[in-house]
């Protein structure tokens, strides 16, 4: 039987990273989905705790006629929210670990993986906050920077070169400039997202409990191959778009209906609001299905980058 040499390099191409992700998720659907269900459960618990907190607060202030009791109640609620978020982040990381162990041919059960990662629960919360904070910082700074550049360019064109604002070419030019600046902003954001894309993995796999170490390691691994990671993220995003967009459509329509109040009709607003909550529910549901796929992709990218950068698979 003739057989082609498909794998002379031993690393994964961009498309094969995605395909491996889908295969991994498909063959482990039940295990990953159970963990995803658990993770989403912690998110829903935040909502429940808010409702219960408001009820208790209402009853207490009704009985005691004082608002002082709401302070410890509020603090307690914040602690509960933090705990739920930390649990959510840890369960997400459990899927990463399960996928990575499967790739390196040392599969683990969900129980074992959870037991391994539970001591690092608070590090995972810290990690998700740090990454979120860094990304917000990058987004804000680059947004302001690009905004200043665009305004300066328009200013130079109109006042410096004395071009009329009514000139149709100038209007088209300004529109193109703004679209271009927006695309540049998007590219900057995705690039930085790519640097920290696999930040959960070192914390989930390696012998460390430091969120900072995990983030800098993710940065170091993806630094030289950022464009590859960017492309992987883009293709995975395109692939999951049909599922992720399901919830966005009703919430978008609902937001327009409830905010732009044309007729002042209360029933329109009510429908709009219920559409927004339907969208929220659908978003939660799609996240439930899509999240394990993303976590699997992260694990594969991490494994592949380690092979590329550290040659761990090169053994005779």
């Amino acid at each position: 039987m003739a057989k082609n040499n498909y794998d002379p390099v031993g690393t994964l191409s961009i498309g094969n990273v995605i395909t491996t992700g889908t295969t991994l998720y498909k063959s482990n659907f039940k295990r990953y989905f159970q963990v995803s269900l658990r993770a989403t459960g912690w998110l829903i618990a935040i909502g429940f705790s808010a409702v219960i907190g408001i009820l208790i607060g209402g009853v207490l202030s009704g009985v005691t006629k004082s608002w002082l009791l709401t302070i410890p109640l509020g603090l307690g609620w914040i602690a509960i929210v933090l705990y739920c978020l930390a649990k959510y982040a840890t369960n997400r990381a459990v899927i990463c670990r399960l996928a990575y162990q499967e790739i390196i041919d040392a599969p683990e059960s969900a129980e074992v993986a959870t037991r391994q990662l539970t001591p690092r629960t608070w590090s995972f919360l810290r990690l998700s906050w740090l990454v979120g904070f860094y990304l917000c910082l990058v987004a804000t700074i680059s947004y302001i920077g690009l905004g200043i550049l665009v305004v300066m360019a328009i200013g130079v064109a109109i006042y410096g070169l004395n071009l009329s604002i009514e000139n149709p070419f100038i209007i088209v030019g300004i529109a193109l400039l703004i679209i271009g600046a927006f695309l540049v902003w998007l590219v900057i954001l995705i690039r930085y997202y790519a640097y920290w894309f696999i930040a959960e993995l070192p914390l989930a796999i390696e012998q460390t409990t430091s969120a900072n170490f995990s983030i800098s390691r993710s940065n170091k691994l993806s630094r030289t191959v950022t464009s590859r990671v960017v492309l992987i993220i883009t293709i995975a995003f395109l692939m999951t778009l049909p599922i992720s967009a399901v919830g966005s459509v009703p919430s978008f329509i609902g937001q327009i209906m409830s905010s732009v109040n044309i007729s002042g009709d209360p029933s329109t607003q009510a429908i709009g609001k219920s559409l927004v909550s339907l969208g929220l529910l659908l978003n939660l549901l799609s996240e439930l299905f899509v999240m394990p796929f993303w976590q699997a992709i992260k694990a594969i990218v991490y494994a592949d980058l380690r092979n590329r950068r550290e040659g761990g698979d090169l053994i005779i």
Partner: protein
Amino acid sequence: MKFLNRVKSQTPESVELEFVLAGLGNRIYALSIDYLIWSSTLLILLLGWAFIISQINWLQSEPIRPWVSAIQILILFGVYIGYFIIFETLWRGQTPGKRYVKIRVIREDARNVGIQQSILRSLLRPVDDIFCLGLLLILFTAQEKRLGDWVAGTILVQEGQAITNQQITLSPAASDLAVRLIETGKIAAITPHEFATIRKYLYRYIGLDPAMRNEVSDRLAHQLLQRIELENRPLTMDSHLMLESVYLAYQQQFRE
């Protein structure tokens, strides 16, 4: 690569071939590139056509106008449907996107696709795109076929990748050493699998983290020297150079 699906197909000459299926990731990657090229071609054509009409007066006269619109619609339809048909037929199952991603459409019996298969695949493309039907079919069928592939009897496979010596940079000193290694007569102890690992190492050497390079080459060289019973190599010799020369020696050992 154990996570990629494989398929065996029998050629008309009863030769059995095994292929790695293209997989959803490569297909979406290729399709994104194709749609990008295809939509920008359509945009440029539309803008160009509008520009031409605005510049030439007699094209805007009453009896000519319906003809101009008809030609415009024909061109658009031609590009819309023709892009995939023309490329897949002329480039033997590849479009620019597929070529870049290194995948190819072939018939189930491993022959090249013809115009008939390309037309069927192209005509069913809109159906596959609706509600992501094609995506679901590729995801959940063993041979990863969308509707167009079922009807046309085609599959998408990955192209084998060849590594040549040009893609691996070898130092000049390696060839002298290779000759000496062949003279020891112990190179034959290396298995093809071990050779493949050395080739992977050399191919990926540049991409390795500089801080890790020495560690990897020392480890590999140590394991290899044990295999060919040359543990007492000269201490001055660099591990990387050693691996380069083993690579060359293995390739050249049976040449004469």
